[in-house]
């Protein structure tokens, strides 16, 4: 039995939890968010990804209520929340700096939001204990924030923002302050907690790996616009633009002109004295149209001699090798001076590597390995 795939965004009958409708945010002359429309569904783990200054934090602060909307409207469960102050929204936020109250203990920090409502004392205590358990902080309940480690502080911040069982939890670079190893562990913890509580999470991050790991959908942003919204695998495999392809992971871009070469197949002329390369594309290209062929390094095979049945094969020489332990990235220089990155898994010991610097090699890939992009 396979589980039903969680994809409310493909169901036309599904009502979104959050709806941005032509939202614009201006700070003076600067347009932080530019006519943005986006739906986020219940129980999603939604990532806003982009370089700093792309507007992702502004979007989050508008959801929390700390920034007003200049134009357009934001709906939460179908209601316009444009003028609802932060303390009246069923939205909680986990701050990048965690913003734990230094004068209160861990227990009191988590209880802070609960005490603002009409909840009974016993219920508050029960809820705080539940949160402490969820984030494995029982032992630290009476400590002050400065008496616990960074990772524990991060969990207190999470517990505090989840305590009121918000409809929507906003996480502003939640793992930014942790070291790499702890960050990876915490990513999985976050996913578990999201699944257990069933809360909708919107995470802001500039770390594409983090977004890919945790999110059900990723929105790649640039200069106040959303460039692409899709599941992590689609963002990676079928980016809709060179910007997205380049922002997510590593990519080789071949610029050229397209020429039809069969059903959904195109020849790409990319260098004067090189044979055109063959690329498949569902999107149509007219003859002579400018295009970019984006190919991931791991989809390129590197071999010492010309492969027999490859659809595309070019000879070059090894310029550089980046050894990453599990992987090696080869920088192969083509006769025209262009450098192509090819990645292989190091399944054998390094001493058995069949080529080294300055060796002539062949790189090859299939017609479906890359994505043909018009912009």
């Amino acid at each position, binding site marked *: 039995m396979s589980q039903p795939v969680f994809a409310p965004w493909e169901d036309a009958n599904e009502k979104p939890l959050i709806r941005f409708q032509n939202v614009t945010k201006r700070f003076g002359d600067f347009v932080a968010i530019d006519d943005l429309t986006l739906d986020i569904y219940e129980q999603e783990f939604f990532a806003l990804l982009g370089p700093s200054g792309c507007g992702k934090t502004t979007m989050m602060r508008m959801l*929390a*209520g*700390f920034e007003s909307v200049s134009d357009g409207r934001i709906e939460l469960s179908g209601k316009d929340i444009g003028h609802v*102050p*932060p*303390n009246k929204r069923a*939205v*909680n*936020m986990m*701050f*990048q*700096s965690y*913003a734990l*109250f*230094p*004068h209160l203990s861990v227990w009191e920090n988590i209880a*802070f*939001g609960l005490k*603002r*409502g009409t909840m009974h004392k016993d219920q508050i205590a029960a809820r705080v204990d539940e949160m402490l358990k969820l984030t494995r902080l029982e032992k630290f309940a009476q400590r002050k924030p*400065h008496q616990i480690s960074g990772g524990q502080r991060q969990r207190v911040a999470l517990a*505090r*923002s989840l305590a*009121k069982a918000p409809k929507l939890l906003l996480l502003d670079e939640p793992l930014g302050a942790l070291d790499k190893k702890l960050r990876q562990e915490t990513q999985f913890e976050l996913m578990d907690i999201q699944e257990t509580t069933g809360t909708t999470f919107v995470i802001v991050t500039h770390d594409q790996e983090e977004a890919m790991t945790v999110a059900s959908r990723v929105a790649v942003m640039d200069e106040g616009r959303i460039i692409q919204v899709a599941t992590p695998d689609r963002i990676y495999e079928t980016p809709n633009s060179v910007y997205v392809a380049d922002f997510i992971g590593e990519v080789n871009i071949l610029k050229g002109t397209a020429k039809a070469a069969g059903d959904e197949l195109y020849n790409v002329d990319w260098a004067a004295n090189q044979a055109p390369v063959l690329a498949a594309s569902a999107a149509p290209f007219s003859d002579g149209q400018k295009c970019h062929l984006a190919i991931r390094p791991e989809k390129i095979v590197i071999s010492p001699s010309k492969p027999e049945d490859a659809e595309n094969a070019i000879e070059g020489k090894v310029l550089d090798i980046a050894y990453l332990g599990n992987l090696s990235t080869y920088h192969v220089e083509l006769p025209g001076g262009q450098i192509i990155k090819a990645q292989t898994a190091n399944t054998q010991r390094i001493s058995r590597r069949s080529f080294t610097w300055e060796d002539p090699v062949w790189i090859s890939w299939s017609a479906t390995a890359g994505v043909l992009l018009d912009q």
Partner: protein
Amino acid sequence: MRRFSLIAVPYAWLLALFLIPFLIVFKISLSDTALAIPPYTPTLKDGFAALIAGLDFENFAFLATDDLYYKAYLSSLQIALISTSLTLLIGYPIAYGMARAPQEWRATLMMLVILPFWTSFLIRVYAWVGILSNDGVLNQFLMWTHIISEPLTILNTTTAVYIGIVYTYLPFMILPIYAALDRMDDSLIEAAEDLGCSRLTAFWLVTIPLSRNGIVAGCFLVFIPALGEFVIPSLLGGSGTLMIGKVLFEEFFNNRDWPVASAVAVILLLILVVPIVLFQRNQQRQAEAEQ
């Protein structure tokens, strides 16, 4: 040994600048007044045994019999407490405004708070005489705008003393509170609002507790000197204002009764020991919290 030499420095400091002067004053407070130089007896010239034998607590007993003294102490305490509260009420909003001001303004605002220190304290208090007197700047202005028809009597009243103390000690209140507020992370207020606080409750539950150390430090910095204040009540308060600093001065210089004056000073010090110890503890706790 090394540890000993390390703590020896502050202890030598305390000994030289606090304990020895205190012992001298204390000794004088146990002596009797005399027409001599210095104006008390016994002194070391009489020999050590006679010196010890000649000391008694009669000056302290005298302070208890004359109600002038305890009235002066109480009135000083009252004036110090009220003016500390007033300074806090005025100083906190100023410090808050400074901490919220745009970054590029803060240095200027800080400068404005410190600027009065560039003029002599005495001159600034004298300036208030010119402002508050019956034909002073304030009364002339109020009469000119027809708000009042007869000059207000402010100078030589307790009100003038409050104005003087609040004006003089305001920077001592503002600076520690500003330091505490300036360090505070703005996202804490946002977090409080996000968790359901209104602006006002966020201020009450987060801003005030986090600036508590600054408030306490500021209050002590105002209260301690205000309690023994002499210049302000004698210049602005007139004869009606009873403050222990003034009594002390009169005993020393008008009556030339050093022993009684010393006894007044010793009791003032004992009253001040409590707030000073509390102040020290607050500073220490603050230092620990910052580690």
